């Protein structure tokens, strides 16, 4: 019976609403009569029934809830024969609960969508060799599974046969298809766009990368900050306190109407759910955009960020050297390029690849009498000419004269952090190339956005030499850059920043720099959905792209702001209501309930704004 009534709560709210409408229609047309009163009495009873049941259920486990406050208030209204108020209060309470449910589901939708991406079934090879559809929970490590076009990969595994392309957006946030063939690793929750794969299960269920991401997000959405735990403790005593105050007011003033009004006004709803609502919407927005926050504490710290420390050059640069500039001297440049390409083609020096890439397709010649000069370069005979390819020291050894123009170029490129590749033909300098690790595309824009988001210090710590580090730093406009640093030294540096009272985020690869990641308030591992990244960081950037960093920071700030607004709304409403019940004459139970339910909806709707948050350019 109880369950039946609670299950029909929405219908009861509707019935009570209709009766109230009927009552007022009756009053406006023929004036207040017995019908008006009876409709309201009926509406009150219908509405109060589920509320009273809930109150009673809670009381049995010794919890005083809002339901109890409302139930007593309705009984009080009956005692003073104010059926109008009792009907309206119960209706508003039920209708409010209905709206809260609808809107809350909306705020939680982003995370729910992510969780629903989890695969549910798998085609598992049985002992007779046939594939049978089974629940994903029945898949064990080592099982052979079939994945057909359009299906979800059920577990993390290795392709044993077949080929196809997989959309890994659920893991990496990138929806570009990735080709898979025998021996490739595939991830649970990704979708096979085309082809057919047979895979061997390596990790199943919660151990898969996707399983870990889901677990992280699910835990994060309910993680509580210190402030929230305080609110929870406070709420536990707040409701009984309101009840006691209500009784005290009644005892001393003998004014039952005032007493029950206080009961309704004291409901703490918005305060209790305001912060969790912001939290779930903010984390949900992040999950949709490849940013995972590990809880509300992280959001709080992150929002106050003033220093970002980038680990090593590779985070900001591509990690692969490329030619930045090519200078030609004298004549026959095309010919010289061909000679250079001929020699570099046979070299396995790291710079050779960059040089060849920059030259592209040219005519090459057989290379003879190659002589490698250690630490300097190569001298060889190409097409009957003596060609020297190497650094400035090699040119000196070959007695190549450098013009004033060439000297200038040399100095300039070196100062920009380039390694130099000079090419001399028959003792005459023909080509000068500057080769350098390139800044990743878009990094500069990312750093500028961070600056606009009030990050004061952008620091790079690197194991590279100071020259390279300085060049990158200058080009990107970093505030500090330190080279030749070992992982321990980086950790020490972070510690010194913390001692200065800075709020530090450390961006690293999650493998070598776990001490620094752990030390900084916010560790951000760039591992692209790998275990290490998920486990070691406070904020995970899913596709390992620091392009997501500004969105993450902006979102954290917006979420933190949203939480504060919600606390303000909740506390403000209670204060205004209490003040007006003491000093004004327009306040009554119905208006109190309206404002109370309104404030709950206001915090939910305010939280919902976070789902649409985008960083403005």
């Amino acid at each position: 019976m109880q369950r039946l009534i609670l299950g029909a709560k929405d219908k009861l709210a509707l019935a009570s609403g209709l009766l109230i409408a009927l009552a007022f229609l009756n009053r406006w047309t023929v004036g207040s009569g017995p019908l008006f009163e009876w409709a309201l009495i009926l509406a009150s009873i219908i509405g109060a029934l589920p509320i009273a049941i809930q109150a009673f259920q809670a009381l049995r486990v010794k919890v005083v809830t809002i339901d109890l406050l409302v139930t007593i208030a309705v009984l009080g209204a009956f005692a003073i024969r104010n059926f109008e108020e009792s009907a309206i209060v119960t209706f508003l309470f039920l209708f409010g609960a209905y709206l809260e449910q609808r809107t809350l589901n909306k705020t939680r939708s982003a995370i729910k969508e992510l969780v629903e991406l989890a695969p549910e079934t798998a085609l598992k090879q049985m002992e007779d060799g046939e594939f049978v559809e089974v629940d994903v929970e029945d898949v064990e490590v080592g099982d052979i599974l079939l994945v057909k076009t359009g299906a979800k990969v059920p577990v993390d595994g290795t392709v044993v046969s077949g080929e196809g392309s997989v959309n890994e957006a659920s893991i990496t946030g990138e929806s570009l298809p990735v080709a898979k063939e025998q021996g490739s690793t595939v991830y649970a929750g990704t979708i096979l766009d085309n082809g057919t794969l047979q895979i061997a299960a390596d990790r199943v269920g919660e151990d898969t990368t996707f399983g870990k991401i889901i677990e992280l997000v699910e835990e994060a959405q309910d993680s509580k900050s210190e402030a929230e735990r305080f609110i929870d403790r406070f709420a536990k005593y707040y409701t009984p306190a309101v009840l006691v105050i209500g009784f005290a007011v009644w005892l001393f003033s003998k004014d039952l109407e005032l007493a029950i009004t206080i009961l309704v006004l004291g409901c703490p709803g918005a305060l209790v759910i305001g912060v969790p609502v912001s939290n779930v919407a903010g984390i949900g927005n992040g999950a949709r955009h490849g940013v995972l926050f590990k809880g509300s504490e992280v959001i709080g710290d992150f929002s106050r960020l003033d220093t970002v420390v980038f680990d090593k050059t590779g985070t900001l640069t591509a990690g692969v050297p490329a030619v930045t500039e090519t200078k030609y001297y004298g004549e026959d440049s095309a010919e010289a390029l061909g000679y250079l390409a001929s020699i570099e083609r046979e070299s396995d020096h790291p710079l050779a690849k960059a040089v060849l890439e920059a030259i592209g397709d040219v005519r090459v010649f057989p290379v003879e009498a190659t002589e490698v000069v250690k630490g300097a370069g190569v001298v060889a005979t190409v097409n009957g000419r003596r060609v020297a390819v190497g650094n400035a020291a090699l040119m000196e050894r070959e007695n190549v004269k450098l013009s004033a123009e060439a000297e200038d170029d040399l100095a300039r490129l070196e100062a920009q952090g380039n390694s130099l590749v000079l090419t001399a033909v028959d003792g005459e300098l023909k080509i000068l190339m500057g080769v350098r690790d390139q800044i990743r595309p878009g990094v500069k824009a990312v750093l500028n956005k961070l600056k606009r988001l009030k990050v004061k210090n952008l620091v790079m710590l690197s194991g590279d030499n100071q020259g390279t580090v300085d060049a990158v730093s200058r080009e990107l406009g970093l505030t500090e850059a330190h080279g030749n640093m070992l992982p321990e030294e980086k950790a020490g540096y972070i510690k010194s920043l913390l001692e200065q009272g800075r709020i530090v985020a450390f961006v690293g690869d999650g493998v070598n720099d776990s001490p620094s990641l752990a030390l900084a308030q916010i560790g951000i591992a760039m591992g692209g959905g790998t275990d290490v990244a998920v486990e070691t960081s406070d904020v995970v950037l899913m596709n390992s792209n620091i392009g997501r960093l500004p969105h993450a920071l902006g979102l954290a700030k917006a979420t933190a702001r949203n939480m504060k607004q919600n606390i303000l709304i909740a506390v403000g409403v209670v204060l205004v209501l209490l003040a007006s019940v003491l000093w004004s004459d327009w306040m009554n139970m119905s208006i109190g309930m309206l404002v109370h339910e309104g404030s709950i909806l206001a915090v939910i709707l305010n939280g919902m704004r976070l789902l649409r948050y985008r960083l403005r350019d």
Partner: protein
Amino acid sequence: MRTATIQLESLTCPSCMQKIEAAVKAVPGVDTTTVQVLFNSSKVKLDFNEAEVSVEEIENAIRRVGYEVQKTRVK
């Protein structure tokens, strides 16, 4: 000791967390320090002593305060 994760219908009212927490903690055999009611994911997590109490009894305690249990996983 076993750990149960109980998925409930979606929790929306502000006071339901307190209610469910109190109901679950009142069941003998439940380790009260481990009880966690997760509002947004609408789950209850807890450790319990299977010699003293079955997971069905815990589910019933939740149903008695008025919440539907959808799915339970015990580890």
